[in-house]
């Protein structure tokens, strides 16, 4: 797990003082007995392989040629590995700070809430779940199709409420009397006067897009002082006359019909009925253009591509924060609880505002805990693996790659380059060490 922020404590004064040489040696033998299994495991599974990996990182793929730092050079020259380095840099810059900040906000907000246990349990729960299972869970959340991915479904719901989608995705005028494109809007080529009946026939409307309530199209009567007309699917199986409303041709309901002046200034708009008819009443004399607004063809929401190459790293980072915010919150909350109440009270008595108390008293006293959380996250992030491999589909794993993933793929994937894989492992190790030394030194200073 993350023993990362652990430090060696000063020696304990536990053991009794030794008396006499023979007892010493017997005592040492007993101690060795207790330690033997540990030495065996640590020596054979950690020390020996670590030394071996270090050595191997200077040898070629086959292992029989000493190639100095060529493997390390490759980390920074191969495209795939360089992407992993860059992504890992993003992780390092963004995640520890965000997790610590969110943990702090949650810890402060819940401090005086009576039911905070319920909140903390909900937020902390993902810590128990494996990063892998969490990744699979989020991959379901992130599916692009708004019918499968919950996040896109939520976005679609909001979007449909704010900006309803059009009824049709595409159409073309059935006669030359109408010009324009679906995206820009379709309009009559020649202006009409009030009292006219305007047929707006459309082709290229696919059958499954015709609304269910569509009825046989009808061309309405002329209306004095008004403009009427119909929008319909001008297509008759077996052939018909373009521009004429015929039997078996259905109206297109819900289409946005716009009334504009001859210079294109919008006057009025309405939507068509089930039989395709529409009417503008009380239109002042003059010449007008009637058209189908582009709103009719507004593209339906196809979903944000969370798992596409562009957003994949932010997406994985969000799911990672979902896991670790609880850890930060619990540790910081414990730190908050440890701040002596009388210190805060003294500051308040002296007339400090709550914000000042937080900034000048709470935050400095909390700084060591915040540092621990930050550094723990820093080390975790340098080794991140499971969540990347589970959230990112195979096709974008090159774009989402991080050092640990690159190491595994290089050494154990198809290429099986043990020299380069070893070099990446050493690189991760070298990045982690200074962070940990920093941690130990800080603890020593505090002790």
């Amino acid at each position, binding site marked *: 797990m993350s*023993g990362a922020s652990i430090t060696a404590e000063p020696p304990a004064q*536990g053991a009794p003082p030794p008396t006499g040489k023979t007892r010493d040696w017997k005592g040492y033998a007993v101690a060795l007995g207790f*330690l033997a299994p540990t030495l065996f495991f640590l020596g054979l599974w950690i020390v020996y392989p670590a030394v071996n990996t270090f050595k191997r990182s200077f040898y070629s793929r086959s292992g029989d040629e000493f190639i100095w730092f060529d493997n390390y050079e490759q980390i920074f020259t191969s495209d795939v590995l360089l992407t992993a380095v860059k992504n890992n840099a993003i992780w390092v810059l963004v995640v520890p700070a965000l997790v610590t900040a969110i943990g702090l906000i949650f810890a402060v907000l819940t401090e005086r809430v009576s039911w905070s246990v319920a909140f903390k349990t909900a937020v902390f729960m993902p810590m128990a*779940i494996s990063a892998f299972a969490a990744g699979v869970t989020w991959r379901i959340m992130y599916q692009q199709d708004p019918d499968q991915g*919950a996040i896109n479904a939520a976005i679609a719901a909001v979007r449909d409420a704010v900006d309803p989608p059009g009824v049709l995705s595409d159409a073309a005028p059935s006669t030359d009397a109408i010009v324009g494109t679906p995206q820009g809007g379709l309009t009559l080529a020649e202006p009409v006067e009030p009292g006219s009946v305007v047929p707006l026939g459309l082709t290229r409307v696919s059958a499954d897009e015709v609304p269910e309530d569509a009825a046989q199209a009808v061309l309405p009567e002329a209306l004095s002082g008004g403009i009427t007309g119909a929008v319909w699917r001008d297509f008759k199986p077996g052939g018909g006359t373009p521009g004429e409303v015929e039997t078996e041709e259905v109206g297109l309901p819900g289409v946005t019909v716009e009334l504009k002046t001859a210079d294109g200034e919008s006057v009025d708009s309405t939507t068509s009925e089930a039989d395709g008819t529409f009417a503008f009443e009380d239109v002042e004399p003059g010449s007008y253009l009637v058209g189908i607004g582009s709103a009719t063809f507004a593209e339906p929401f196809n979903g944000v591509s969370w798992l596409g190459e562009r957003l994949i790293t932010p997406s994985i980072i969000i799911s990672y924060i979902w896991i670790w915010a609880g850890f930060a919150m619990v540790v910081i909350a414990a*730190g908050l609880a440890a701040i002596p109440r009388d210190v805060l009270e003294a500051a308040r008595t002296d007339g400090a505002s709550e914000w000042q108390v937080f900034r000048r008293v709470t935050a400095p006293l909390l700084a060591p805990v915040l540092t621990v959380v930050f550094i723990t996250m820093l080390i975790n992030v340098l080794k991140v693996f499971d969540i990347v491999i589970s959230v990112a589909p195979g096709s974008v794993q090159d774009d989402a790659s991080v050092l640990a993933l690159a190491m595994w793929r290089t050494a154990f994937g198809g290429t099986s380059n043990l020299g380069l894989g070893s070099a990446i492992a050493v690189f991760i190790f070298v990045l982690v060490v200074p962070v940990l030394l920093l941690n130990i030194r800080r603890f020593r200073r505090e002790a």
Partner: protein
Amino acid sequence: MATVDVAEPVRVSREGTGSRILRWVGKTPLHLLLVIVGLLWLVPTIGIFLTSLLSAEAYLEGGWWQVVSEPSKLTFENYSAIFDNETITSSLVTTIWIAVGGTLLPIVVGALAGYAFAWLEFPARDWLFVIVIALLVVPLQMALIPMFKLYETFGINDTVFALILFHTAFGLPFAIFLLRNFFIGIPKDLLEAARIDGASEIRIFVRLILPLGLPAIASLAIFQFLWTWNDLLVALVFGRDTQPLTVAIYRQLAQFGANIEIIAPATFVSLVIPLVVFFAFQRYFVQGLLAGSVK
């Protein structure tokens, strides 16, 4: 942060009911915010559970939230299917073995060493302890390649045994750290009394240290269990055929949509057991976490 109420809690008892209600009302935006965030945090887990109860067709048509309007689509068929699926059941058994072995062995080995570091006298003891703790830094990536080859030489690749040994070694530094620091807090008088009575060190260890150290051992057990149960990387390398559940699910991910009937329920099984452990032993889990990170 402006909504944080920082009034002294001690004063609450002296307040009248009226002002207490007022304070509650004043906090409403905060409560509301916390309720919303808390619920949002639960959504992914609820989502995978509901997905695991849908047929693939139903999932592809409308996502897991459709069960709110159409609860009749829920079915346990996916679960009966995965428990009939040889790959999944055998990987579940493998996972259980790895988690049990990978929890018990480091506890035994770590407790022995923890006792030695806390209460036995021998040369360079404190140096050795620092070295053991320093090994916490070594990322397990450093061991994968050589151990793979070594396991191959000994012919134990692809065995549960090999996985348990690997988890034991990498669990040890933390185990020793945690247990030694706990053992050292055991009153010295107790040990000296036992020593004067002529009890051997191993007897003291078994009869005194282990029972008294139970809280720390419990914390450690939970961590180690979660760590080994949830592992993917180690098993991907050493368990190609002897695969635990995580690896078995990983192999299904290539056909995500088509295999959702297997992926979702298997993932839920894989995450529900750690969750049960977590809820049952939450106290020890948090204690261990704080011991590990705040000293």
